[in-house]
């Protein structure tokens, strides 16, 4: 009896945790997307200010040598207006293409893949989109770890293979399947299910990569702690 209610409670708790985790993940992803939009607007403003300032400065320098006159002033004003409009209305920077992901530097790779995934997200079914959020979260954790990794080591090759090749190729393959066939069962599995399973595996593997890359630092920390114990604690006892 009690074991039944225990099991019930445990399953309820697990569901609650999962829902909360999903919710948090979604909120986190949402906040991030908004923040990214804000950041891109801010950089755009900065670029406009810099370009206008450069034009003004150039006009001043030229004005010292040859007086610009009224038409010159008007010309400068028009030029500034044109540049401002051009930068403000220019289309947003496009996310990296799949082929570019294969060549990008290993340290910048997680961030680039993240942007690429963000761009694919709207086209994916809901469960897969949630997984994509979790993967971008994992990629964020992976990014600083790669700072100390040499580009031609085995670990770097492993990361490149998964994050730079397998993951984009997998999502692209799914994208090529016609929308009408995505929910249709084939050999016991649907493409949607296949996508979720694959993304789950990828998410797990990225988490394990983080773990593997941290192994050396974890070991070193433990070793140093043990050394301090041996030298200043065990020694005093013995």
């Amino acid at each position, binding site marked *: 009896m009690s074991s039944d209610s225990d099991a019930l409670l445990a399953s309820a708790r697990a569901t609650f945790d999962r829902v909360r985790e999903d919710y948090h993940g979604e909120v986190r992803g949402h906040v991030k997307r908004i923040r990214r939009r804000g950041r891109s607007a801010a950089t755009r403003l900065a670029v406009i200010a810099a370009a206008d300032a450069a034009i003004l400065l150039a006009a001043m320098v030229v004005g010292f040598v040859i007086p610009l006159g009224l038409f010159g002033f008007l010309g400068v004003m028009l030029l500034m207006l044109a540049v401002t409009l051009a930068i403000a209305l220019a289309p947003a920077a496009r996310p990296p293409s799949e082929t570019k992901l294969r060549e990008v530097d290993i340290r910048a790779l997680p961030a680039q893949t993240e942007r690429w995934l963000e761009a694919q997200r709207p086209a994916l079914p809901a469960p897969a989109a949630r997984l994509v959020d979790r993967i971008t979260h994992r990629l964020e954790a992976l990014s600083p770890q790669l700072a100390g990794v040499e580009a031609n080591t085995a670990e770097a090759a492993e990361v490149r293979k998964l994050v730079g090749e*397998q993951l984009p190729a*997998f999502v692209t393959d799914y994208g090529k399947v016609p929308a009408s066939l995505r929910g249709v069962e084939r*050999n*016991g599995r649907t493409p949607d299910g296949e996508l979720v*399973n*694959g993304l*789950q*595996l*990828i998410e797990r593997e990225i988490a394990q990569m983080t773990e593997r890359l941290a192994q050396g630092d974890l*070991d070193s920390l*433990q*070793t*140093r*702690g*043990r*050394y301090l*114990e*041996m*030298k200043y604690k065990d*020694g*005093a006892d*013995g």
Partner: protein
Amino acid sequence: MATQADTLTIDPPLNLTPPDPVPTVQAEKAAGLVPVDTGTRSKLDDKVDGFVAELVAQDVNSPEFGRRVDAITAMGQKEIRDAAGQSNRFLDRPVRAMDQEGGVGKDLAQLRRIIEDLDPGRQGNLTAPKKLFGLIPFGSKMRNYFDQYKSSQNHIAAILKGLASGRDELLMDNAAIDTERANLWASMGRLEQMIHLSKTMDQRLEDKANELDHSDPAKAKAIRETALFYVRQRTQDLLTQMAVTVQGYLALDLVKKNNVELVKGVDRASTTTVAALRTAVTVAQALANQKLVLDQITALNTTTANIIDSTGKLLKSQTARIHEQAAASTIPLETLQRAFQNIYDTMDAIDTFKLKALDSMKTTVTALGSEVEKSKGYIARAEGARADGKLSGPEMQFRLEAL
């Protein structure tokens, strides 16, 4: 007289015991060394039961059956890969420990050279008056002898500092070994779980095949020829890797014990050297009425006492005794000689220890090296199985992994 000289060596003789070489661990005996608790055991058993039930429910020729057999061939590959990755590192450590040059070894050799130069026994008759051209009395041999201490004190201080930092390196090495051993212990635990899993699987499949012999002989045959065959292969792989890992675990312990003994030796070498120098100060006072000031060494005494705790304790108890004996003794030079003898004894003990330890280490490394070589074939097989189905690999519910 003799008793006085003997009391100086009242400290127990330095006994450095070289650890025994690590025996080769047979694959058959490798399992069962790391305990798997009953809770985990029953969970693994449930996993096997569920797996076998699903396997038997499938049609023998269906892709689903094939997928489950694939899961068996991939069984424990992660655990084997992890353990094998570590085995390359643990072979490295004993090899480095065998390296005689550098670290403590170099400092000890230097110390021996300098101590031999100062040894009163090699100075001829110190009490005989010194004569110019063998005729005219000129200066004192004794004075010249003690002056040598002043000139070499800087060098000795540097060596003692080197020994102290070498000792720290040995401690650091042991701390690293502790970490590696903790990691290995965890890997061995997971390997043990996988061994338990694969052995249970073997048993269950065998039972199932026997059961099916009458009702469905074709299925019984398929189970025996595919599933059971791979299970046995994997069991062998896991056992081989386990044997190598256990052996590496023991080899690391050997290196650690070795280091602990070396630390003892270094401690004693520092203590006896400082003690001899202190004796020299007292003897100089008594014999030549010479005030021998060894500032460097005195400064070092305080730092050494702080750095090396055990040495500090030993020194404290010794100093009072040395003072008493050297001042009161009618034969102070003999006391000094005895102090030098202490250093020699210590260094000889370290040398013999090193020789014997080197033997143990060599035997261990050779045995371990050949075992690692042997296991590489199995690892290659595991890796091959892995390369086949990486991303499209077995689904979550078929994964046979340690908990």
